[in-house]
């Protein structure tokens, strides 16, 4: 570990802690329908949209109606995206380095569409070999905006239920999505894209160029509208990169500054949503408790991973290789990491993106040391509540909060209540099932993949067996269940021998199972989150007294972390044993 590395991490934390409350305050204004400085700019457009689509933004919806609109919106988005991706041959400028891009087969497209609809951005395809500019811009990037907006809308609706003092309404879904895109995602992405472009990130519709490499062999350099996708990819915890190698590609993430900037974009909205929550329920301290919980768990992950990677891998030590910090090298385990980022920035990036359901990576997770690689696993096992995805992190941790309140609340001798609202059978039922879905999909999908003959036959590494294959499969389904999208490599659902999808074939088993898992693990918890908001909305509020369990102090933070860790650990520990833990114990790298 280096002073420089730690300095960057500390500055990063300071910026996050300093700026997220400000953004959070802005978000609260947006969702409480107050006037913000962008209202004069977009207000007329917003009203025009409502008129055009016949939406009465003032008409509040109960949770069922809200959910219905959400599902309808998502279904329409799914169909449109599928149509766009399957009609690539019709796209204009369809000439990429002399190659025409056909559409990927139906099964891969099913997986990709489901992936982008659910904010997962699991990518079996590689962007520069598969997707036309039309698909990237009008298809995938549009869904990156929409799916993030849906996530935030669900969080906002659930919070309205928790904060609600009367009635059962949670707001208007269409208004929430529209306002999210107009007042939050679009302006922030616009600025972020400009910053990225200033650092050398591409933004063009040029033809792929051909140059001779150092070795004299001609190389095709992919081009494209990268910055516009990169911005929302990071802000919206999407993670689906323009290029195959995602944020380790120099056109996506050219230097240390963009790396730092990207991680900040990844965390700023999930962190700000916590402060927004505080504003909406009228208590900064409640927000501080949740913020602290997330921060402690995230910072712990960064520290562990940084220490593990800086220490170097057992293989390096066994071979007697130098792992110390020396001039021009940060030492440690640099396998699979970009030299221009080094260890601190790689770790900060990957820990943050696996914690936030972003899933973009700037270094290869499978090349991490046993312990360092355990951090992404742990982040995923915690069900995306360490910041989590935009909105998803907030509504998921609120489910854990309710669970912690229920167990802890009993121990102070009252029937449990959260912010004055009693947590009773109905809420517990919804929380218990809501929290059950991710383990269910992750474990069952992994079991199907590793134990069924169809599953094993479909993936080359699985046919070979061994702990690494298990890690890859388990990570794949854990990632898709958590709508994260990061991968431990090796696990493939698409075979594209030539650029442009000619003669390509999808692995139907992996594509459909993964797509199904993503859809189920996204929409089922959303329904439960909305239902919880709906049930809580109409509840009588008891005043807080000395006998009430406080949910805004250190004890509660400890309890909440305990519940998250215990539930996550107890659910996934047996599976983790067979993959990452056995690998860590045998002292091998992940490759």
């Amino acid at each position, binding site marked *: 570990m280096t002073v420089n590395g730690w300095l960057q991490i500390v500055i990063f934390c300071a910026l996050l802690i300093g700026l997220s409350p400000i953004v959070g305050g802005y978000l609260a204004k947006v969702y409480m329908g107050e006037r913000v400085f962008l209202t004069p700019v977009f207000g007329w457009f917003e009203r025009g949209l409502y008129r055009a689509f016949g939406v009465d933004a003032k008409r509040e919806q109960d949770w069922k109606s809200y959910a219905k609109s959400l599902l309808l919106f998502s279904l329409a988005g799914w169909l449109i995206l599928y149509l766009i991706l399957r009609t690539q041959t019709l796209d204009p400028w369809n000439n990429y380095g002399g190659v025409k891009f056909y559409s990927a087969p139906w099964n891969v497209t099913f997986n990709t569409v489901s992936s982008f609809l659910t904010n997962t951005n699991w990518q079996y395809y590689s962007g520069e070999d598969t997707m036309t500019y039309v698909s990237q811009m009008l298809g995938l990037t549009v869904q990156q905006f929409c799916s993030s907006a849906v996530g935030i809308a669900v969080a906002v609706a659930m919070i309205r239920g928790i904060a609600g003092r009367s009635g059962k309404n949670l707001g208007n879904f269409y208004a929430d999505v529209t306002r999210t895109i107009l007042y939050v995602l679009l302006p922030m992405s616009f600025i972020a894209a400009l910053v990225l472009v200033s650092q050398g990130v591409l933004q063009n519709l040029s033809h792929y160029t051909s140059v001779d490499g150092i070795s004299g062999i001609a190389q095709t350099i992919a081009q494209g509208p990268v910055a516009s996708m990169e911005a929302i990819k990071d802000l919206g915890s999407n993670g689906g990169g323009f290029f195959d190698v995602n944020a380790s590609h120099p056109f996506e993430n050219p230097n240390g500054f963009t790396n730092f900037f990207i991680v900040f974009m990844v965390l700023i909205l999930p962190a700000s949503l916590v402060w927004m929550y505080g504003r909406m329920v009228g208590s900064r301290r409640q927000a501080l408790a949740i913020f602290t919980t997330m921060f402690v768990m995230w910072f712990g992950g960064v520290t562990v991973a940084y220490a593990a990677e800086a220490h170097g891998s057992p293989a390096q030590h066994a071979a007697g290789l130098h792992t110390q910090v020396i001039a021009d090298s940060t030492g440690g385990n640099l396998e699979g990491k970009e030299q221009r980022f080094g260890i601190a920035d790689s770790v900060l990036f990957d820990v943050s993106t696996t914690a936030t359901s972003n899933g973009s990576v700037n270094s290869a997770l499978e090349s991490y040391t046993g312990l360092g690689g355990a951090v992404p696993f742990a982040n995923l096992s915690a069900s995306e509540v360490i910041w989590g995805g935009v909105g998803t992190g907030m509504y998921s941790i609120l489910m854990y909060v309710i669970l912690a309140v229920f*167990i802890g609340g009993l121990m*102070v001798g009252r029937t449990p209540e959260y912010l004055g609202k009693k947590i009773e059978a109905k809420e517990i039922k919804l929380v218990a099932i809501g929290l059950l879905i991710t383990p269910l999909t992750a474990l069952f999908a992994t079991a199907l993949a590793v134990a069924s003959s169809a599953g094993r036959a479909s993936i080359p590494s699985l046919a070979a067996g061994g702990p690494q294959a298990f890690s890859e499969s388990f990570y794949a389904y854990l990632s898709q269940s958590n709508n994260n999208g990061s991968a431990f490599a090796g696990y493939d659902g698409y075979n594209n021998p030539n650029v442009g999808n000619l003669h390509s074939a999808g692995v139907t088993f992996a594509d459909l199972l993964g797509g199904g898992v993503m859809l189920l693990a996204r929409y089922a918890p959303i329904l439960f989150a909305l239902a919880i908001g709906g049930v809580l909305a109409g509840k009588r509020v008891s005043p807080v007294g000395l006998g009430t369990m406080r949910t805004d102090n250190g004890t509660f933070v400890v309890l909440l972390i305990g519940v998250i860790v215990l539930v996550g650990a107890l659910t996934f520990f047996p599976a983790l044993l067979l993959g990452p833990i056995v690998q860590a114990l045998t002292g091998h790298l992940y490759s």
Partner: protein
Amino acid sequence: MSTPQATHERAAISLFRRDIVIRALLDSFKKLDPRVQVRNPVMFVVEIGAVITTVTWFIQLGGGKSLGGYEPSWFTFSIAIWLWLTVVFANMAEAFAEGRGRAQADTLRSMRKETMATMEDGTTRPAAELQRGDIVVVVAGELIPGDGTVIDGIATVDESAITGESAPVIRESGGDRSAVTGGTRVTSDRIVVEITQEPGKSFLDRMIALVEGAERRKTPNEIALNILLAGLTLIFMIVVATLRPFGLFAHTAISETALIALLVALIPTTIGALLSAIGIAGMDRLVRRNVLALSGRAVEASGDVDVLLLDKTGTITLGNRQASEFIPMPGVAEAELAEAAQLASLADETPEGRSIVVLAKQYGIREHDMSSGDATFVPFTAQTRMSGVDWNGKQLRKGAGDSVIAWVRDQGGEAPPELQAQLDRIGREGGTPLAVARDSQILGVVYLKDTIKEGMRERFDQLRAMGIRTVMVTGDNRLTAAKIAEESGVDDFLAEATPEAKLALIKEQQAGGRLVAMTGDGTNDAPALAQADVGVAMNTGTQAAREAGNMVDLDSNPTKLIEIVEVGKQLLITRGALTTFSIANDVAKYFAILPAIFVTTWAASHTSKSPLWVLNVMKLGNPQSAILSAIIFNAIVIPMLIPLSLRGVRYRPIGASALLRRNLWIYGLGGIIAPFVGIKAIDLIVHNLLGG
């Protein structure tokens, strides 16, 4: 917390009484009936596991193989036995909790004798045939044939059958002491009673049903907790179900016995086994304090109470006024006034009168020898509102201010102007002034104070620390009420309270989201008792009050509300603590069972152990002893915790945050550590028995 006013506590029936133990043991096996178990999802899963392992054992005995293929049959047998024992232990917890109540019910039942009722017209009829509205006559020595209201007469009644209190109580027609309970005995005089119960639905019948738990239904919080436990069970079923395919991928066939052992170890069996016992024990703790909760829901609600409405008289104050000061008129010595007051009170046997005599002694005035002169006592009457003595030619009187003034005027005297000022001041301060006169002269005023019970301020402080607001309800005027409220330390007061005002106060508090508890005895309390979340009716009260409340206090002690709240809190804390303990236990069980299951997984060679075996941090002897030890620990922790769940985790009024921290340390951290120690200890024994 100690109660300032001693509570009559029923002797706890020992858990280890022979008949209770035998019956509980028998019941533990009877409850193995799946139709009983299915109500408890956690234990039902254990029972199914026990059945499967037993079947596997038989298959092995018949020469078949388990799914794992390698386990010896004795291992399957041992696991099966301990799984059955786990269910039996859970049943035992419930059976013991029920046993105590049943023993109490039996005692009560023995009192429900067949009596003949004498009707108004002199005919007799079996008590069981009495209808609501029948009029019966009961004379000294007879049992009252049914619940009813005294409509004529006054009598002393021995209610020890119900209350356990041997001193007879007075029951009379009219007023708030008119209710009589079937099965109690009239010890003097004769009363006419109108029966108010339907046949077979007497108070005694209800009491028997309650302590027996015959009508026990799951309370709302119990249902919620059960759902959580079912949810956790479901998660662990998914974990265990997928472990088999995972194992196969790693070339490890995990047997059904090992999988079931893992599942049972992980699901929250401890709390699942003890949950219903905790609920029954909570009701039982109230019964032992002579409180009958008519529903478990009411007990639970009492833990949530935010506001206590307390009647001033009898709860906050002693209810009788005590002399605290002599205030002489100008030109009169204090001792002179004290002496006159004492003389005037000598024959006054009321607590007020006695307190004047006691106070006068502090002025060095000895009791006069009344035989030395010619003394004629003048008793208090409602007309004169005075009492006193004519002694050695002097007329001494004490009484209400205006009465005494009128009397003095009749004697030709005049009241000094200072008198009215003093009378007004004392009234303002919440006291009662008594004027004292000798012949035509008014000597001064005795200040009678309504004394606040000792320790009330501390008690209210404790309640405040518990997060409970206290509101004093009194018929006094605002000034008086404010004064007493301030002196006693109560948070708020309702002065000049009418039944309507009381009801309105409760509704207002409830509209603010607060849960309200109150006590009451009079018929006019009934609407408020019914409206309150926890309404405790005094047993001495009217039938209407007893029917409106959701608890009845057989001791008729209003201070008991505070204990009821504690019992409610204790009940919830015990549930939460054991849930936390149960879940925290899982960590150690993983470290015991998983290395054992994966002992050969991805081992370097056929003779070496899996790299995962280093996770056997407890250094348990061998895989089979490790799994068995975890299951044995899981089973025996249930009977070990039965006493705690019946007694309840102690409640301390130290504020919610401190309480949570404390319980997290004990049951959270303790719950993580305890099984490491326990499983290791059991393994040392098991492993040695297996021959090392």
